[in-house]
């Protein structure tokens, strides 16, 4: 907490994220209406006291849908990045630890994956699966681990020949022990930073997929599919596009600020400058 207060940008990112988390967790208590309650007598009402963010094409309260939508966006972000981090760390650790041909194979695989435009890969995969949030999280996770792999491998390569690692190895520590007790804890900083930044891009990917109709399925709401609904009415009902757009913007900004801030703060090379 103390380090956060030294960096106002990271702090504002942190506050945004905490606020969004709060909203997501307490959505049922905060929302004035059932997000899926259809009222065809009050369709496309502009923002007012009874509907803070107006109503959509089926008369549903946009504010309530936005609150519930934050759950989807956050869940997708965190779970997808969790999957990516686990896979990325595992492969990066193996590549960086064993080096040699294992490293070559894994890194060529990473290069291959990186050469495929991820969003189109996801689109192609989703077209075959039933679109649901779980599938989306898994697919985003399975296609975004390459950055983590590269970072972890680089970190491992530089730590691998340090004296304390060699000493532990000489004392007969197993490979597993070396990795889990000595190498991994010392590589945690870049992993945390990329994960936080990764959440931002996962949130964006989910919004993009929902916008294209391949994300969360009706009647569930996510920021992306509220935005799609809004596209139809953009000349008339600005509130349907503005609020989800802003929400996505602010959340992604929050993760990016926090990620960048953490990088600055946790990077030992920057420490001296700060003081």
């Amino acid at each position, binding site marked *: 907490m103390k380090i956060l207060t030294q960096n106002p940008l990271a702090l504002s990112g942190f506050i945004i994220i905490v606020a969004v988390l709060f909203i997501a967790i307490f959505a049922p208590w905060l929302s004035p209406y059932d997000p*899926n309650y*259809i009222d*065809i007598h009050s*369709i*496309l009402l502009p923002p007012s006291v009874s509907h803070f963010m107006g109503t959509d*094409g*089926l*008369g549903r309260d946009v504010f309530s849908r936005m609150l519930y939508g934050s759950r989807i966006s956050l869940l997708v972000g965190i779970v997808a990045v969790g999957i990516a981090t686990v896979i990325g760390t595992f492969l990066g650790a193996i590549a960086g630890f064993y080096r040699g041909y294992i490293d070559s194979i894994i890194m060529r695989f990473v290069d291959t994956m990186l050469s495929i435009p991820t969003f189109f890969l996801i689109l192609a995969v989703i*077209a075959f699966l*039933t*679109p649901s949030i779980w599938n989306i999280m898994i697919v985003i996770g399975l296609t975004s681990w390459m950055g983590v792999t590269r970072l972890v491998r680089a970190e491992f390569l530089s730590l691998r020949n340090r004296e304390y690692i060699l000493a532990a190895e000489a004392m007969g520590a197993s490979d597993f022990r070396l990795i889990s007790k000595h190498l991994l804890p010392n590589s945690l900083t870049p992993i945390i930073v990329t994960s936080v930044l990764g959440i931002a891009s996962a949130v964006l990917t989910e919004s993009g997929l929902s916008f294209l*109709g391949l994300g969360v*399925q*009706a*009647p569930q709401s996510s920021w992306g599919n509220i935005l799609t*609904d809004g596209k*139809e*009415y953009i*000349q*008339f009902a600005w509130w349907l596009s503005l609020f989800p757009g802003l929400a996505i913007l602010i959340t992604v900004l929050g993760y990016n600020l926090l990620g960048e801030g953490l990088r600055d703060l946790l990077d030992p090379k920057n420490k001296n400058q700060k003081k």
Partner: protein
Amino acid sequence: MYFKYIFLFFVLLNLTSCSDKKEVAYNYDGTFNSEKGGTLIDAMSGEPSNLISMIAGDSASSAISGNIFNKLIKYDKNLELAPEIAEKWTISSDQKTITFYLKKNLKWSDGHDLTSEDVFFTWKLVTDDKTRTPYGSDYKLVDRAEVPDLHTFRVVYKKAYAPALDSWATLQILPKHILKDEDINRTFFSRKPVGSSYYKLAQWVNGEKLTLEASPSSVMGEPNISNLTSRFIPDTSSQFLELIADNIDLMNINPIQFARVIPSKPDLKNKLALYKELGNSYTYLGFNSKHLPFNDIKVRQAINYAIDKQEIIDGVLLGLGEPVASPYKPGTRWSNRTLHPYPYDKNQALKLLREAGFNDTNHDGILEKDGKPFTFEILTNQNKQREMTAVLIQRRLKDVGIDVKIRVIEWASFVNQFIKTGDFDAVILGWSLSLDPDQYNIWHSSQQKPGQFNFIGYNNKEVDQLLEEGRTELNPDKREKIYHAFSKILLRDSPVIYLYAGYGLTAMSKRIKGIESPTPPAGIAYNSYEWFIPSTVRRNEIAQ
């Protein structure tokens, strides 16, 4: 992509410049006498590929060529068959021979005579295997065609075939004297047509616009409006901006624009007139009759009672549609007026579901039969109106204890992976209808192979027989009885639930006068040759 932005930029520039200069205050109200002259500008999303409609097959092409070429017969404003270049036609007592008697002194726009030789030539072309046309099959049923004299054309069918008359109301007659030595698939004629109808081609600028001018030798008489310009604007939002800027005179709009955007802006309300007409299509929820429990008529009827169609029309179409009770356009003779849609009746739905064996035994709010909960998936394509319809249906069916999942799929995979394989529970789709009442392809039990149109697997012996009778009966009154009986069975069986028939919505500049009101069944455009633009409200027509 850049072009689009540049284009938009210019549109916006145009908008601002319009508001800078003093708005020309047209007075569109008052009574005007019809007069000739003026230019009507409309917008098309696509550019015609070819002005020979039997080759082209796209709607842009047929919209243009319909103003250039004539047919033997046509549909009048009540969608009844009426003479066009044939002044009358007779049907032999065995219903196999149709004889058309052409009007006298018909001319092509280049001055040549139009005779039954041209009709015969066109029939030859459309049935020639070398002609690349998707429309040949109806005409290949003709056993032999004859030209007894220059004003008579006779076709003899192997057996009576009722949709035959409809086919002669769609075939555009082409000039033999120009095309007899041409390869129809790649002739210059597709871009330099010579027709016989109201207009002839004046100018075609690729990717920009196409202009028709009134043809002095038109066999239909001279139209009031001298020039028709169609501008090619692919994006409907850009079209709408052009309409607002008064750069086009008419376009099709969506319910939001119709009910909310235009009425809320006084300047638009002053210069645009709004028209609605029933389109030739309806949207339905169709069940896969081969999947349990949709093979049970009581389940289908129960769902029909459980869905509130008026709510869908009000919510999704903003009230701009009608409920339907038969697969025919309301107001035409084929639509059975004695039929009414199933009313919304939750209790009746619950009663029927109980009779079908569904009960909520574990009190979770979802009905079960044999221990299995009643849950199914509605598939639809990426169409906002259909998605919203699905959400409303999902809510209503939840009220009676049916758990519905919705899945929205991109069109190509929707058709290939689900429709053609029959791998679905229920779909929300629409049917566009031809003007002939024959729907053998959609409902006959023989039409269930992959790729055929009875993909819902509907199977009813009685309906099969009526459909077979209907397509061999050429007497309209007898046909009407057959199709009314057919619609009645269909409504009872509910293999599909009719949801709505949406209106076609048009916004048109008020400078266009002479539009018939109320809109006849054939739609507002049927008398477009009688529309006129009073000279006091015309645009300044500077050559562009």
